[in-house]
């Protein structure tokens, strides 16, 4: 499965193009770094960025080792520096650069446009890994930009994708900003991600953070959350936004619709069900 992960993810994501033609993004878990290192996915709003030069600047200012692997306007950074220090440095010195994800294994790629463009541009089909998430976005109330694209990073090796529409995200964003959670957009889903980041920072387990989210987030949602060794799914108590889950001996999958799962080998005989509202589902690799 791991050898085919990129290919399967691509097929799934392309099937969901109609549901979200505005932007696409993926997170993939692969190539773990050493225990004392952090892996960060950077995204530059400036397409012509000189990643090598950025690496030299970081090395000089933060006195740490930086290995930068450029992937067009994205770059995978491996470093022994502290991830928060890097984020702070980028904010102050290079505000055009966003942090897509950080952790030991996560990498995240996103851009505006159709899933097939993202897949082709970043060669997603060739990607190998243990597990992955994809999202195609139909923008509801906020802009169509790269920053507004899912997945949103919520913590170390964590990311979130959302289908639905939150109804109290503005006040919640104000509250979370007071808790020093940083936001790049006016997007409702980013607030959900920021909320989880905050709860996790306060010491909650992911499960506790999601339980709390059910009380504090209002509106409609199906969330899928990528974790270091698996993923979690949560639907709001009303449970109108679709979700289908499937399991075989070889894999577990979740999508908005069955047709996205259908392209996986053995899907016809998989155990298929619909997650119940307000119930947290999570998978971990053995």
């Amino acid at each position, binding site marked *: 499965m791991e050898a085919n992960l990129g290919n399967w993810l691509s097929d799934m994501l392309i099937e969901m193009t*109609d549901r979200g033609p505005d932007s696409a993004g993926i997170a993939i878990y692969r190539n773990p770094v050493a225990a004392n290192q952090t892996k960060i996915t950077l995204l530059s709003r400036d397409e012509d960025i000189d990643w090598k030069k950025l690496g030299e600047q970081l090395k000089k200012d933060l006195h740490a080792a930086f290995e930068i692997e450029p992937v067009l306007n994205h770059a995978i950074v491996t470093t022994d520096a502290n991830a928060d220090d890097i984020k702070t440095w980028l904010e102050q010195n290079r505000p055009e650069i966003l942090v897509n994800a950080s952790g030991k294994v996560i990498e995240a790629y996103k851009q505006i446009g159709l899933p097939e463009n993202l897949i082709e541009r970043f060669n997603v089909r060739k990607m190998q890994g243990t597990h992955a998430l994809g999202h195609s976005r139909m923008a*509801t*109330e906020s802009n169509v930009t790269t920053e507004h694209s899912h997945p949103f990073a919520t913590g170390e090796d964590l990311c979130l994708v959302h*289908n639905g529409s939150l109804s109290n995200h503005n006040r919640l964003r104000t509250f979370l900003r007071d808790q020093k959670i940083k936001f790049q957009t006016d997007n409702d889903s980013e607030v959900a991600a920021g909320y989880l980041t905050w709860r996790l920072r306060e010491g909650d387990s992911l499960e506790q953070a999601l339980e709390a989210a059910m009380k504090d987030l209002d509106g409609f949602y199906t969330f899928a959350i990528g974790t270091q060794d698996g993923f979690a799914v949560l639907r709001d108590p009303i449970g*109108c936004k679709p979700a289908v889950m499937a399991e075989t001996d070889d894999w577990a999958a979740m999508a908005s619709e069955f047709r996205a799962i259908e392209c996986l080998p053995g899907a016809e005989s998989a155990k298929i069900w619909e997650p119940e509202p307000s119930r947290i589902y999570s998978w971990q690799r053995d």
Partner: protein
Amino acid sequence: MSDSTDNEHKPQRPLPPLVESFTWNRGTISEIQRAAEEGIYSIRGGGAKRYVPHFDDLLFLGASMSRYALEGYRERCDTDVVLGSRFAKKPLHLDIPITIAGMSFGALSAEAKDSLGRGASMMGTSTTTGDGGMTPEERKSSKTLVYQLLPSRYGMNPDDLRKADAVEVVCGQGAKPGGGGMLLGQKISDRVAEMRTLPKGVDQRSACRHPDWTGPDDLEIKIQELREITDWEKPIYIKVGATRTYYDVKLAVKAGADVIVVDGMQGGTAATQDVFIEQVGIPTMPAVRLAVKALQEMGMHRKVQLIVSGGIRNGSDVAKCMALGADAVSIGMAALYALGCNDPKYDEDYRQLGTRAGFYDAYHEGRCPAGISTQDPELSKRLDPELGGRRIKNLLQTMMLEAQTLARACGKSHLHNLEPEDMVALTVESAAMAGVPLAGTDWIPGNTRY
């Protein structure tokens, strides 16, 4: 009177004038007392009664030296419009850009529905069904009939869907965006109950969301289903109540609409909470501007047609909507008034209902003296569909002539060529909302994040 002699020769102080509190005026006090007695919100029909900035705050810049006017009656000023040209095999070709909005049989009498169909057909335009299904009478009398798909799905069936000329997916209504319907038991007559599969005389509660989809990504799939059932022939409209119009219009385009209907807060209803009618939504004027902006940004202006409704009263409202970028307008309340709703000739009947001609809005009670918003056979007999049809035709014709007069004055040989630049605003509010300059200035106040 005091018996003190000191006061006897002093001039009498006049009684102080009665001062009504603005906050606690008689209307407010009466509503509080009604609530205390009845324990439920007030329900009524009609549209918003409060003042909102409206098209009267805009004026046209007729031609003089810099522009050349067209000769009335002699030089052409065309009015036709094609609706549904994006995906539908059979788009609608209407002679005039004024259509009749969705009003249900149930809310209205069969005679009223029949009249609307006759009048619209005489003028080459369309009528619309409502929350209650399609009656054979209205199908027969309407040359072009739009079939509404509402959350309740009362009377929905594939035969009528195929008999319709277009399908309107109703996501919201200007009078109550985000709310469902409410038809009180008095109007659920035998026929209405049968059409809606309801027990006779019960209060009918309509849902606020559709039963089989939630959100624009689902709606896209629902629209595909409707297109499949109708073999991709019928234009599919999406109707929204004006609120977050800029986003809603973009989503309607993404969901695959051929036509988008935006209904402003002045739009009428058969029955809903007064608090909904007065406190939710945005006025029609800014809604047009936001809708057009959304369409333009997507490169879809004129490709996905825009119909605007909510408080459209006359030809100048029509011309101003078109100038702001609408492709057509829809009328509801104006058509009811044309049929005789609130006609002073029924004043005695209105008094018996505890109101007066000009103030009647209890459409939900089903006792309309003019035979319009009623299911009572004795009352509805008062409305002769043939005469009603002629009155509707006359209103549409008058509105059309007025709109053409204004367009010709601005040098336009087609109503569609009216532009925002043909207008100025009288007030700062209307300048900001409509996005046209305050008269005598080049100032368009306001800033929009859209």
